[in-house]
Structure formats: C-alpha cells, structure tokens
C-alpha cells in the first residue's frame, strides 16, 4: 500500500502537485529506513518547506513497484519531479550529499 506522508508544514493541501515530488522506497520497518525517512523529513522542512511531497513505498508490501523505478538498493530516494529523475541510495545521513543529489539550493542558515 502506498503510504502518503504528505508533510505540508501546516498549510492546507493545495490541489496542484507539489513542486518537489519525492518517493522513498524502503523494505519494512528497519532502522535504516526509519533513519532515511527522518533525515529526509528534516531536510525537506529545512530547505523545501511547503514545496514538497513525500511518498513512502514499502517494497515488502508492494514488491512489483520495485521494477518501475529500477530499485535495487534500499532505502532509495527518487526525485520524481522536477525532472530528470534522480536517485539517492542510503540512509540519507549526509545532508550535503542529499542536497547535491536532489539539486536543491540550500536555504542559508539564519
């Protein structure tokens, strides 16, 4: 089952799709997948607040979805939009690398 964890930072859900559509593939509730989701949410809140949407896909529940996005490793974060598709594998612990991978301009620390 798709589990949509749309974190919209308090604002009402807009009808249009979010500017950043991210999909996180995990396999069950492992420490790695939990860490990845935590790291991703923190990063998005910091740098993409209000402009993102995260969809978490558990491959144990939905194995056939793995082939579509060519998933091999878990966790894998897929940037579905903006195009082109990019993938980041691992628990996303290195924020700088994730930002580079997603091509997100970091919000300067105030």
């Amino acid at each position, binding site marked *: 089952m798709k589990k949509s964890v749309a974190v919209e930072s308090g604002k009402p859900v807009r009808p249009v799709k979010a500017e950043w559509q991210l999909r996180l593939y995990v*396999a069950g509730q492992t420490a790695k997948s939990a860490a990845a989701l935590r790291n991703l949410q923190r990063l998005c809140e910091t740098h993409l607040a209000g402009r993102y949407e995260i969809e978490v896909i558990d491959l144990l529940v939905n*194995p056939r979805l*793995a082939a579509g996005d060519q998933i091999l*490793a*878990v966790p894998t974060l897929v940037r579905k939009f903006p195009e082109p598709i990019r993938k*980041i594998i*691992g628990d996303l612990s290195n924020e700088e690398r994730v930002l580079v*991978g997603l091509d997100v301009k970091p919000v300067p620390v105030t």
Partner: protein
Amino acid sequence: MTAKKDPGPASIAKAATGIEGLDEITGGGLPRGRPTLIVGGPGCGKTMLAAEFIVQGAVRHGEPGVFMMFEENAEELAANVRSLGFDLDKLVRQKKVALDYVRIERSEIEETGEYDLDGLFIRLAHAIETVNARRVVLDTVEALFSGLSDHAVLRAELRRLFRWLKDRGMTAVITGERGANSLSRYGLEEYVADCVIMLDHRVNEQISTRRLRVVKYRGSAHGTNEYPFLIGTNGLSVLPITSLRLDHPAPAERVATGIPGLDRMLAGKGIYRDSSMLVSGSPGTGKSSVGASVANAACARGERVMLFAYEESAAQLARNMRSIGIDLERWVKMGRLHIHASRPTLQGLEQHLVFMYQAVRDFEPRVVVVDPISNLSLDRDDSGLKPTLMRLIDFLKQSHVTAVFTSLIGDTGAALAESQIGVSSLMDTWLLLSNLEANGERTRALQVIKSRGMPHSNQVREFVFTDQGIELIDVFAAEGKVLTGRLRLGAQGVPVADRGALAAVAAPAKRKARR
C-alpha cells in the same frame, strides 16, 4: 577423457540444462539447487547459454525460470534468443519464464549513508513467485560493481544473495566477465564455489572457435577437457554430443560399394553396414569418385545419402561424376541425396561437425560421404581435433550410418602413416589410392590396407575410370615387377594399336579410359 560417467549413488542431484553435450560433460547437468558461475570474455556466449538453460528448463524439464538481466533489456534478450529458435515472449505469457531487466545508471545515482540490496532481493523473490521458478539466471550481476561504488557492501550483499538462492533451492546460473588474474573480474568464484564453467572464444589461424571447460564441479566427476561448442540455429551444442562409449551395434549386413571390383576384393560382398571407410590418396587418385560411387550405389538401393563436399560445389561434383557415368543429379532431384558443399575455412572444424550432426539428425541418411575429411582437420596442427573427429565417427555409427571419408595425403609413402594416424585406427576399412609412374606413364592403383572382420584381397589393383564408373583390374605381375597401364597391356599381349584404350583385357576395345 571420460566424457560421461554414470552418476554414482553418491553423486549430487543435478538439473539438466537441455543443452546438447553439456549434460554429457557434467554427467547430468548443473548442480541442482545451487549456483553455477559461467565466466567468459565478451561475446563468448554466456548470455546465450544462460538463456537456453532457462528456456530448456521451462519447455522440456517443467522448471519455470527467472532471467534477471543487468546489461540488455527484455526486448533485446528476446530478440537474441529468437535467433536460437526460442520464443521467449510466449514463455513469458505462459507464465513459465519471468524476465526482469535491472538497469543501473551510475550518473543518476548518488550514495549517502548505509544501504543494502533488499530491493534486488524483493524483485527477485517477486519474479520467482510469479512463475513459481526453480531456475534463476543473473546476467551479468557484475554490472552492479560499476553501478555502485561501495564494493564492500556489494560483496557482502552478493554473498547473501547466493546464500539466499541456495536456501530457496534455486538452480542458478550467474554469469561473469573473465578476469585477468582471477576467473571472473570481481572474483565471484569466491562466492559461487559449487560449479564454475569457463567459456572462451579463440581465433586460431583466422578460424574462430568457441570452447567450454568445466573448471570446477564440487561433488561430481566431470569432463575436464576444453570442449568446442557452437551457437547454432537450434541453440547451443557442445561437443561431444554423443558419449565416447563404444557400445554401438555391429550389423553383419554388407552393402555394396558401387565398385564391383572393390566388392570382390572385400570377399565379394562389400563393406559392413554402419561401418566407416577411409579412402586416402594423393591428388588425382580418384578419392571423390570412390565416394560418389558409394553414394550412387546407396541411392540406387533406395537409401538416403548425405554428401558433404568440401572441395567442389554440388553442381561441379555432379558434372564431374557424370563423366564417369555416375548421375548424382537424379538422386538429388528425387530427394534421396543431399549434397552440402561448403568451404572448410568457412567455419572451424567444430562448427562443421556440429552442422553435420544436425544435418544427419534431420535427414537421417543411411550413408554419409565426407569429401575430404583432411581439409577439415588433418592439415591443421591441432591435436585436440582428433578426438572431435572420433566423436563424429562414433556418432555416425550410433546413428546407423555407413560412412565414407576421403582423405588427401602427400605423394610420398612416408607421410602416409603419419598423416592418417589420427583417424585410420578408427576406420573399419581403409583404402589407399596411389599413383604409379613408370615408363612415362602414370596409372592409378588401389589397395585395401585393412578391412576389419572380413577376408580381403591383399593385392594391388589397377584403378581405371570408365564412362560406366570405376573398374578395378588385376595388375600384371611378371619378373618381380608390377605392371600397370600400357605395360600391362603389352605384357598381356594386347596389340600396340589398341593400347591407347586403357581398359581391362576382357573388356571390349571400344571402352575408353577417361581423364
């Protein structure tokens, strides 16, 4: 050289590959429920072997399979496999085969932090469940090494993957590139330790040959040689196709050779059915004509004949044989005679032999003529080819085929024994044709060097072409000399004026010698 051993009681369970010859070498197939590593350079047939393993498993052995590919996509694979005559798409529709193309694009992947390859495991498990697979192919899992930078994780995961396949009882084939210092480039043999098969593609004197060797097979006897193999229109064929056991039957029936004089030399009845005959001689001694005579006689008996011509085209052969009163074209039109003419250099010997196997199986002839066998092999300084030839002869015997091989040898007698050493011992009957030169005249002679299991004449016969085939004439021995040709005619008292007609004394003078 034991190519086949009956698997003993202690032997491990095996899964037949369905690939001709490979199951012979391995004594039944690949280790069941375990992974097998197939290594080889680019273009040596790894994918084809793996694909046939899956297809044959699904079609012939009732074992569905999963083909997970990392290098080409499903359409490309299906197209390639179609060239072997297998319809992969149909098998997919029938849920006998599952395909999964795993694409790794280094440029679009960033790595940060810990990960594992559970995604791959899940995909594989999903595919296995979809078709209830018993067989799995990973082709080429090494592609992961270029896609992922953390090789330590990758190695650990591959180890886990092979373990996982084993636990599930999958008979797996894992392909890998050949490495410079190890069997495979990334040392996969460390993980897949049960069975390793190496493929090779070598070019020797501009003729390329694929070869296969079972490097290792834990818990099983296996053929250790390098065996040639071919990717043909019906899939892979590894030589030997037949076993090396000498257990073919030996019929007592005799068949005429089409040369009455020769039949007389062989106790009046000709050669044994299903036996093999070698006809060797230097250039121009009439080897092809002997072969054609045998073919002609068999066709006249209503038998099917296959003639492999490696020196002349079918039309040329038919024309030349017509000059000695042998009409091959008639049999070709009736469908009794198939002539396969090709250049020996077109392919390696092995390819020719595999082609012969297939042709003989399809056409089921009673007589096969190979003209000449020497062009295929004996000029080449490759001792490994002789066993291959031996297998062909055994195969023909087991297929109940009477075989005639011609062989070109040098003019000198010394080269004779040497040049024929590889094959003459395999032959039941050996004819030697030679040129005799005396007094400015060259004549042909024939002798039976051996003919197993029958009394045969030890005398040299003069070999004469007439427009009604080949005739053998007793030579004239006088004063310790053997006389042939005009000298014989002279000694037999034929007037000088008639000696131009080089024929049997008993024959009418109008019969004319040819060539």
